C-alpha cells in the first residue's frame, strides 16, 4: 500500500521508516517510554510545587506572611506589628484571602511536676486558627482552644509524652517578659494534637493571644499568616495584600518564610529533572544508534541519491524528516500510555506512606507534607510530550544526518564496478 503524503522526498523519508518495521517500532516504544517517564517527572515536580504550597498553607506557614520589618533577617519573636488589629482587619477584607491568622510567639518552659520541656508557645486566635493549621482541626484527644476562654493550652503528642501530662492537667508555663522579669502562668491542657509526624508534634504548643501577651508583656501581634482561597492565585493575592499593608510591614512569600522547605523541594525537583534527563539521554543514544544503523544500511542508496544530484543539505533533511516522523509517532504513543496514567494519579494520588516507615507522615522544614501526592495534570502534558519526543528524535538524528551528508557519490558506481 502506498502512502500518498506530500512530496516524493517526504514519502521517501516516511516510508524509509517502514523498511525495518521492528526497529522503528522498538525506537518509537523506547522514545515513548522515555518521554512518558520524563512527563511523569515533570508532573511530579509541578504537583510537588503546588502540594508544598498547600502543605505550607496548612502547616502555619501560610501562603504569605505579614511580618514586621527585619523579621526575615532576625526571626526575632519579640518583634511586633504596628497597629496590628487594624492591619489584621484590612488584610481579612482583601479579595482572595481565605483566612488571616494572627500570631505571637514566645520561647517558654512548660512544666508539670518534675518534668519540663522548652518550646515555642504560639499565641493564636482560636477562631481563625483551625482554618489556618490543618492538624489542629481534629485533635487526637480533647478539644481545641475555645474562643474567648483564656488559660488553656494545646500541645502536640510528643510534648505531652515527654511531660507525662494528661488532659485536664494544669501546666506551669514560664518565660521572661519584655523587661527581663520571669513571668509564669498556669494553663490547662485541653487538647492533644497528633499530626502524624513526631517532628511536627514537638513544635505544637498553642495558647490564646491574650495568654501569650500576659506572659510576654507585649500586647501586639507578631505576624499575620495569610492563606489564599485559590492556590493558583497566590501571587495575585500577595500583590493585593502588599498594597493593603503598604509600608507598615513586610509581606513575605511562603518560600521566604520556609526556606528549608523550598530547598527541599528544589532538591527534589533537581533530582527528578536529572533522572528524567538521564532517561531521555539514554533514549536519545538508543535512537541515534538505530538511526545511524538505518543510514549505514542505506549507504549505497544514499550514494545513488547523491550521484543523482541530491545535495548534502537535502540528505540531512531526509534523515531529519525521518527523525521527525519518529518523534511524532513516539509523541502519540507517549500520550497514549502516559497521559491516562498521569491523569489517573493526578486525581487518585500516589500514597507515599509505604515509603515513610513508622513515621507515616513526612515533615520538611517544619511543614507537614501530605502523604498522598498528586502529580499535576493539564493541557501542558500533551504539547510537552511532542516537544520532548521531537527534540529527542531530532537531536538523535543529527549525527546520522551529518553522516549521510558525507556520503561519497562516487561510491554509487564504485560499488557496482
Amino acid at each position, binding site marked *: 500500500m502506498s502512502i500518498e503524503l506530500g512530496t*516524493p522526498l517526504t514519502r521517501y523519508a516516511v516510508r524509509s521508516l517502514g523498511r525495518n518495521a521492528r526497529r522503528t517500532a522498538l525506537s518509537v516504544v523506547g522514545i515513548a517510554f522515555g518521554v512518558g517517564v520524563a512527563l511523569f517527572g515533570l508532573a511530579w515536580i509541578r504537583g510537588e510545587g503546588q502540594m508544598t504550597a498547600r502543605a505550607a498553607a496548612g502547616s502555619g506557614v501560610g501562603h504569605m506572611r505579614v511580618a514586621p520589618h527585619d523579621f526575615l533577617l532576625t526571626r526575632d519573636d519579640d518583634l511586633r506589628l504596628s497597629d496590628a488589629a487594624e492591619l489584621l482587619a484590612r488584610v481579612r477584607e482583601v479579595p482572595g484571602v481565605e483566612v488571616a491568622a494572627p500570631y505571637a510567639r514566645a520561647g517558654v518552659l512548660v512544666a508539670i511536676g518534675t518534668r519540663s520541656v522548652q518550646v515555642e508557645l504560639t499565641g493564636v486566635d482560636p477562631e481563625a486558627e483551625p482554618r489556618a493549621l490543618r492538624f489542629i482541626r481534629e485533635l487526637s484527644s480533647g478539644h481545641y482552644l475555645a474562643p474567648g476562654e483564656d488559660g488553656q493550652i494545646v500541645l502536640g503528642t510528643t510534648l505531652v509524652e515527654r511531660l507525662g501530662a494528661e488532659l485536664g492537667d494544669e501546666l506551669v508555663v514560664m518565660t521572661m517578659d519584655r523587661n527581663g522579669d520571669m513571668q509564669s502562668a498556669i494553663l490547662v491542657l485541653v487538647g492533644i494534637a497528633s499530626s502524624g509526624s513526631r517532628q511536627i508534634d514537638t513544635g505544637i504548643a498553642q495558647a490564646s493571644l491574650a495568654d501569650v501577651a500576659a506572659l510576654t508583656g507585649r500586647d501586639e501581634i507578631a505576624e499575620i499568616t495569610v492563606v489564599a482561597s485559590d492556590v493558583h492565585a497566590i501571587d495575585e493575592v500577595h500583590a493585593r495584600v502588599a498594597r493593603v499593608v503598604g509600608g507598615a510591614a513586610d509581606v513575605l512569600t511562603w518560600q521566604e518564610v520556609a526556606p528549608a522547605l523550598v530547598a527541599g523541594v528544589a532538591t527534589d525537583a533537581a533530582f527528578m529533572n536529572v533522572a528524567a534527563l538521564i532517561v531521555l539521554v539514554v533514549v536519545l543514544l538508543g535512537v541515534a544508534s538505530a538511526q545511524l544503523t538505518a543510514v549505514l544500511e542505506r549507504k549505497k542508496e544514499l550514494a*545513488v541519491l547523491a550521484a*543523482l544530484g541530491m545535495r548534502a543539505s537535502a540528505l540531512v533533511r531526509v534523515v531529519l524528516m525521518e527523525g521527525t516522523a519518529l518523534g511524532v509517532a513516539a509523541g502519540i504513543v507517549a500520550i497514549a500510555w502516559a497521559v491516562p496514567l498521569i491523569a489517573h494519579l493526578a486525581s487518585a494520588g500516589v500514597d507515599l506512606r509505604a515509603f515513610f516507615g513508622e513515621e507515616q507522615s513526612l515533615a520538611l522544614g517544619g511543614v507537614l507534607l501530605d502523604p498522598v501526592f498528586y502529580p499535576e495534570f493539564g493541557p501542558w502534558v500533551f504539547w510537552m510530550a511532542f516537544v520532548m519526543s521531537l527534540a529527542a528524535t531530532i537531536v538523535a538524528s543529527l549525527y546520522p544526518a551529518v553522516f549521510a551528508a558525507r556520503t561519497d557519490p*562516487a561510491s554509487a558506481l564504485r560499488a*557496482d564496478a
Partner: protein
Amino acid sequence: MTDDDKPILASAKDVEKTFVTGKVEVRALRGVDIEVREGEMLALVGPSGSGKTTLLNLLGALDRPTRGEVVVLGEDLGKLGKSARARLRLGSLGFVFQAYNLVPVLTARENVEFVLELRGAPRAERRARSAEVLADLGLAGLADRRPNELSGGQQQRVAVARAVAARPKLVLADEPTANLDSENAEQLMALMRRLNVEHGVTFVFSTHDPRVVAHATRIVTLVDGRVASDQAREAA
C-alpha cells in the same frame, strides 16, 4: 554538421586518478585524453580494472581527478566544490547504474519524480513529465509499482526513465545491461539508442558485452588506465 563539429559535452585531458587504500596506491587512470560530443553513443570497454568506472565517475562529475583537467558542460571539475558538482549533476547529467539502484520504497513514478523534485519542479510538472517519460519507455501500466514488483528489465527501464526525465544533456551508464538477460539487454540498448536518435540524448556507457557495444557509435577501449583505442562506427 560533421561529428567533429558537434559541441563537446565533456572532456578529459591527461587525466590521472590515484586511489590510496591504506599504504597501497592504485593508479586507476594514467593520462587519459577523451572528448565526448553531443549525440554520441559512446561505449567504454576494457577488462576489469582498466579504469572504465573511474572515468565514468569523472565524466559524471562524481569525482575529481588527481591530475589533469576534466571539463563537463563547460565546468572545470577541479574548480568545483562538492555542492557545485551536485548542482551540475542534478541540472545536466543523468545516471543509470548496473544494479538499477531504484529507491525501493518509492513507486516507479515516484522514482522518476524524485529527481524532478530535487530540481525544484512543481508538482504538476513532475506528474506530467514522469507520466510522459514512463509512457515513452513503455512503463505506463507499471507506474504505481514499487521496484520489487518489477522485473530486472523493467527496473532498468525505470532507471533510464529516471535518468532522462529531467532532460539531461549527458547520461552516464555503468554496465547497464550487466544484470539483464540477453533479451532485456537488447531491449534496453534499443531503447537507449531510440532516445539517442529521437531525443538527442548523449550516452556514455561502460560494458563488457559485445552485443551492447554493437549499439555504440563510438568505442573507446581502456587498458591499464590508458586509452588503447578510440573508434567511431555505425551503430547497429
